[in-house]
């Protein structure tokens, strides 16, 4: 969807337009799910939390509590971040779950890959995913947004509510830290 289309959708949502909300769900559910999945490391939790995010979003729409988020994407991502924080508080500890389950990783693979190549990729992805979970929360989320989900620095800055410059610096540091974790593991 174009930026104009997204702005229009957001405007409709602010008017409590239900169709617009469903359309927004269709547009962002997968993204939000993946964001949460890579943050918490569990499919089941990601599903529950994604449901909670959209429920809360609708509640925000009804209570006119959208003033702070300038874009629809920022709205959903912010609610997702807050929902994850609440979830951590509820569980009173971070859940570091190792993604060793091969079943999850095979989803990433294309049937055309040869076995050896697929095993190499599997192993590398496994390293990256588990290293991602070792990153501190702030770094992990911006890595997910920038390098997995391809959001722009502007969009990320809007979501995390920080200046563009600070976001760029944080991204650089996050990537270096992730690289170091992977190298230390090897």
């Amino acid at each position: 969807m174009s930026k104009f289309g997204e702005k229009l959708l957001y405007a409709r949502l602010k008017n409590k337009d239900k169709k617009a909300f469903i359309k927004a769900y269709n547009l962002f559910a997968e993204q939000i799910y993946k964001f949460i999945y890579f943050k918490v490391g569990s499919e089941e939790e990601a599903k529950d939390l994604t449901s909670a995010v959209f429920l809360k979003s609708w509640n925000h729409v009804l209570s006119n509590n959208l003033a702070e988020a300038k874009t629809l994407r920022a709205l959903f991502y912010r609610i997702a971040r807050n929902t994850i924080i609440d979830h951590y508080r509820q569980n009173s500890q971070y859940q570091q779950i190792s993604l060793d389950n091969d079943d999850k990783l095979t989803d990433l693979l294309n049937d055309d890959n040869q076995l050896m190549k697929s095993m190499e990729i599997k192993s590398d992805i496994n390293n990256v995913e588990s290293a991602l979970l070792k990153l501190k929360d702030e770094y992990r989320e911006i890595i997910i947004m920038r390098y997995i989900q391809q959001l722009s620095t502007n969009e990320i800055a809007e979501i995390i509510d920080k200046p563009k410059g600070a976001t760029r610096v944080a991204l650089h540091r996050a990537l270096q830290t992730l690289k170091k974790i992977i190298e230390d593991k090897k």
Partner: protein
Amino acid sequence: MTERELLFQLNNLNQKKIDQAWLSSNRDILVSQILAGEQLEKTSVNWANIIWNMTSGLTIDFVARPVFAVAVMIILVLAGGTVVSIKASENAKPGDSLYIAKMISEQTRASLTFNEKDKAKLNVEFAGNRVKELTQVLSAPSQNKEEQTKHVEQLANNFKQELSEARDRLSKINFALTADDGKSEKTGTVSPSTNVAAKSPEKKIASQPAAKNAKPAQNQIFGANLEKSNSGMQISDPALEAENLFNKKDYDGAINKLNEVHKIIESNSEDKKAIKADVIKEKESATSTK
């Protein structure tokens, strides 16, 4: 690994496939919640028709499915806040699909409670819920022992956290959790008057006659603030006892103790309301005679 390789790997992660069936059923639930919310607000039927038309395939059968009950339950929790007690989620435990609804319900109730004492009562109630869930998790036939252990650990941590929060809130407001013993009268009157006296001198003077009329507490002085007990008797804190029982895996005993704590806070609230009312009357009569 070079930075380029790392970026390539990260980019590949976005290829992760999502469960489309879940995405679709989640959308259906969301739609039904929006509709359910609309029904609660008693607005025009036209919107409902529009959305029903848009999401073709929804039939009356959907309404009869358990998922509809879940959807209505969740929207009632969000709309109704503290009051709605929903049977379906009451018995949910970690791992159940309704558990998130139960957690949302607890969070909603906590956010709609402003009084420290009421918040403490909620902490105690939630601690009790954690114990019940723990017994359910332990008794459920679970194929995944690792997940069971993880849930048990989370519930235990949560239980301790809730109880600790309750005790912190109560000590912050100088509230006494007490043991039942016979020497209540003297010490029982100190507690309410101490709380009231802390506020102002007039109230202190006014509170003394009120305190004398206070019900001789089954609620007496207590564990945390030992300096307030002049009797030198052995004092026990039922919240601490609940935690000890929990640690000894006597979960039924822990639940009973938590119920006791809840009752203590509840009954003391009644006493203090009566005392506060008396204090206000005294102040008004003192002001009117001036």
